């Protein structure tokens, strides 16, 4: 359909050249007759088409619209396949239109080689005018023709075509169950066009959990706030998958075979906050898991090994490491898949959020249902349109040098301030944690409330600093309102990642000090992470309470403004990402942490929803929901998941596990358990040396990561070049369309003048 970017053979330009024969103004007679012929042909076709429809409409389907004859020239060129070229829901017209489209799709299933492209950019009109063929076809015949064409397409094309046909559902069902053509075949042969894609949204499987709550939120606050809750739902699914893997392969089995030495401390309520005490030596943490093969017949009676068939021994260390690895791998695959899908949906070559037509036609959120929210939305759109107009007006007058310098200085200062606050926070946390470490002499079993101090400080910083950054942004006053959100996200993200990095470094470097006495540094780290998660939840609750409920009361009662606080989407999503990073960091040390995270997210959903409904109003800034979704998933993948994966790999590869507890006691590194298992396997069965060979040369080879990253970089470069090429083609095609529009105008004017001259002569 798209003409190749060949030579633009414009009649307008050709008219100026004295050498071209056919279209020069001297040969006006030929010009006139050829146009006249084309117009006659087209109008006769239209009349024939109308007659057919009059026959079809004997059942009284649609009213005859006479405007169809008014645009014969518009149908002539450029040859656009407008499915609405015949108005109303006249089935015959739509079916024949889609027959043409399907026939072309089938004929053009492969690209013609470049050498065979004709020189003229505008291909012959008669190639496209397939409607001349079924001149006397009835609706039934047209339907069977369409069915035949659809049958000859591939299944995916077929279902796609069926979905995009703008016919009513009854027609689509009829199309699917039509007898195969020609009718002389056995009448029982039915052409069923593939599996029925679910066309109705009313099937029960689409409902899903929280369907009504999400509908309510979308109806009141629109798609932007809804994106936060959908993100929360995605995180719940990720955590459930991790939890299930760990549950089935690690936790349940250890629970079935509890280790011998277990001295539980009495349960006090404080454990839920601190994670220590009763929970220390329980399924929650690393220290509980045994380093032996469970259910092995030799373990119970070390002297005599019964020769009878063993009851399924289970190698716990291997299972532990593999389950954690597999859950990370599955999470990685799911994340990359959802990131690429969301990127594919949201990225458009050459689009900008400041396009006025896009704002007019796509800004209205049809999900919004409540009267007050609809009113707010109208006001928002009005403001945005005014802002866009003002911006376009001011774009013409540029700033003076002084103003630009002033703006740059302000921007630099703001960034300097934010980065120095991040550094300050990091130093403060470092010193505080050193202090706490020295104060509680016996780590991990010291006074339990003191253990909460560090998480408190970190969560407090995480909660207070974003408000500071908001104030900074208000002082800074970005040019484009969209940039404000991105800058805020950047700053908050830098703060959180720096603090987490510092904490990880401290955990790993401090394990040396904690050796000796029955203490498990892994359990300590697990407990720390549990406390951080709990504190994060507590602070989120406090933030919701103070930031939304109390602020709304203050606004209403004290300041007497009839305005509710806005729901800060970016900040809330970053908090979710932070919580998820904590979970991923702690999975190795506390296998039940994903379950805790699931509980936390479920509670958060209901609390946030209630607070939203009672205290907040929808955001007034323009918000591109799909774009931000991509950004959130990317942030989840790149700093968050990647950081956790690096931490995990480093711990498995190079950190020595503790001597006295956990599944990897006494080993040099956790990874050694895998290697020893490989060696045991090799010894027991010499036939599978390929396994150890593959392991040695592929996994342990340092060149493999370099090779993989080289391949990835090559793929990225290739995609960038493809994108560049597409942008160029879009530019060329746009020019071509503009040219053709001007050609059309020129030719119509020429026609008019020729007719006038002819009229004057006669």
């Amino acid at each position, binding site marked *: 359909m798209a003409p190749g970017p060949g030579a633009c053979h414009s009649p307008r330009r050709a008219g100026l050249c004295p050498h071209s024969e056919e279209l020069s103004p001297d040969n006006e007679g030929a010009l006139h007759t050829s146009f006249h012929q084309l117009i006659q042909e087209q109008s006769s076709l239209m009349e024939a088409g109308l007659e057919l429809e009059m026959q079809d409409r004997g059942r009284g389907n*649609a009213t005859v619209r006479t405007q169809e004859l008014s645009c014969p020239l518009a149908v002539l060129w450029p040859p656009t396949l407008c499915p609405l070229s015949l108005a109303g829901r006249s089935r015959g017209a739509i079916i024949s239109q889609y027959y043409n489209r399907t026939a072309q799709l089938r004929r053009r299933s492969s690209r013609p080689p470049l050498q065979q492209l004709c020189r003229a950019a505008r291909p012959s009109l008669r190639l496209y005018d397939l409607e001349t063929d079924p001149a006397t076809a009835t609706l039934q015949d047209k339907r069977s023709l369409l069915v035949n064409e659809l049958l000859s397409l591939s299944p995916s094309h077929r279902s796609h075509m069926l979905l995009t046909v703008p016919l009513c559902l009854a027609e689509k069902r009829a199309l699917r169950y039509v007898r195969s053509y020609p009718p002389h075949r056995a009448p029982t042969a039915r052409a069923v066009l593939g599996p029925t894609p679910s066309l109705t949204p009313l099937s029960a499987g689409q409902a899903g959990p929280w369907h009504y709550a999400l*509908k309510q939120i979308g109806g009141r606050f629109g798609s932007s706030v809804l994106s936060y809750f959908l993100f929360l739902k995605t995180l719940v699914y990720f955590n459930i998958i991790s939890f299930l893997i760990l549950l089935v392969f690690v936790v349940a089995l250890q629970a079935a075979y509890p280790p011998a030495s277990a001295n539980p401390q009495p349960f006090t309520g404080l454990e839920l906050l601190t994670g220590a005490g009763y929970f220390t030596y329980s399924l929650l943490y690393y220290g509980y898991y045994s380093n032996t093969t469970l259910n092995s017949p030799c373990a119970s009676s070390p002297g005599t090994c019964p020769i009878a068939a063993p009851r399924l021994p289970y190698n716990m260390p291997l299972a532990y490491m593999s389950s954690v690895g597999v859950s990370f791998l599955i999470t990685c695959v799911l994340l990359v898949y959802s990131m690429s899908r969301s990127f594919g949906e949201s990225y458009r070559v050459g689009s900008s959020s400041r396009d006025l*037509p896009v704002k*007019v036609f796509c800004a209205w959120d049809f*999900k919004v249902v409540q009267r007050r929210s609809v009113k707010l939305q109208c006001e928002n759109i009005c403001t945005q349109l005014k802002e866009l107009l003002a911006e376009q007006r001011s774009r013409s007058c540029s700033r003076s040098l002084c103003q630009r310098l002033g703006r740059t200085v302000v921007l630099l200062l703001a960034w300097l301030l934010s980065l120095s606050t991040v550094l300050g926070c990091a130093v403060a946390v470092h010193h505080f944690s050193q202090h706490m470490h020295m104060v509680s002499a016996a780590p991990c079993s010291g006074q339990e409330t003191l253990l909460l101090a560090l998480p408190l400080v970190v969560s407090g910083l995480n909660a207070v600093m974003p408000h500071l950054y908001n104030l900074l942004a208000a002082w800074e006053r970005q040019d484009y309102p969209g940039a404000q959100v991105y800058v805020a996200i950047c700053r908050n993200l830098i703060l959180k990642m720096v603090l987490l990095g510092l904490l990880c470094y401290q955990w790993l470097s401090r394990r040396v000090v904690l050796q000796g006495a029955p203490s498990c540094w892994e359990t300590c780290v697990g407990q720390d992470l549990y406390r951080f998660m709990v504190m994060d939840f507590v602070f989120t609750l406090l933030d919701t309470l103070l930031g939304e409920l109390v602020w709304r009361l203050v606004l209403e009662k004290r300041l007497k403004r009839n305005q509710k606080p806005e729901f800060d989407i970016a900040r809330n999503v970053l908090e979710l990402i932070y919580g998820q990073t904590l979970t991923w960091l702690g999975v190795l040390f506390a296998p039940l942490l994903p379950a805790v995270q699931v509980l936390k997210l479920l509670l958060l959903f209901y609390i946030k929803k209630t607070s939203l409904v009672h205290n907040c109003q929808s955001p007034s800034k323009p918000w591109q929901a799909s*774009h931000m979704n991509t950004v959130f998933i990317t942030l989840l993948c790149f700093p968050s998941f990647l950081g956790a994966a690096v931490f995990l790999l480093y711990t498995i590869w190079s950190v020595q596990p503790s001597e006295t507890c956990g599944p990897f006691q006494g080993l040099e590194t956790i990874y050694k358990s895998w290697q020893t298992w490989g060696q045991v396997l090799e010894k027991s069965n010499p036939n599978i040396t390929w396994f150890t060979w593959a392991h040695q040369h592929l996994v342990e080879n340092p060149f493999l990561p370099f090779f993989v990253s080289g391949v990835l970089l090559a793929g990225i470069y290739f995609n960038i070049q493809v994108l560049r090429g597409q942008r160029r083609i879009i530019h060329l095609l746009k020019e071509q369309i503009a040219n053709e529009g001007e050609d059309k105008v020129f030719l119509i004017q020429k026609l008019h003048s020729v007719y006038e001259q002819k009229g004057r002569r006669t």
Partner: protein
Amino acid sequence: MAPNVVPMDYTKDPDVKLPMQLIINMPELKENPFKERIVESFSEDGEGSLSFNDFVDMFSVLSEMAPRELKAIYAFKIYDFNTDNFICKSDLEKTLNKLTREELTAEEITLVCEKVIEEADMDGDGKLGFADFENMISKAPDFLSTFHIRI
């Protein structure tokens, strides 16, 4: 919505149509400024009465699962107020008035209409055909999520 008009038994395919007034009072559509146009675009007779199939059609196009092309076709129909298969300046003015509840001044409306036609019209005929509309929609990744009604 109309339990006395609509029969429970649809096996004999009864020809029951609900008038527009009933449908635009649905909670999902009540506050939508384009509700009359939406219902008119899906009705067979162009007056706004929907049979059951039309009703299901309407919500299936407005659902999450409908493909982009189908949504673009019907969005074009909805915004084409005078049903001449082109979105001309008067259609744009009506759309803007409905979107902003007539808060924009006449001068601003004219300016916006001119700018929209200038930016979106590719072939220079002064109004937006379906190809121009579809091209513009393809640049808006949000279209799929905003042109969506949950039921």
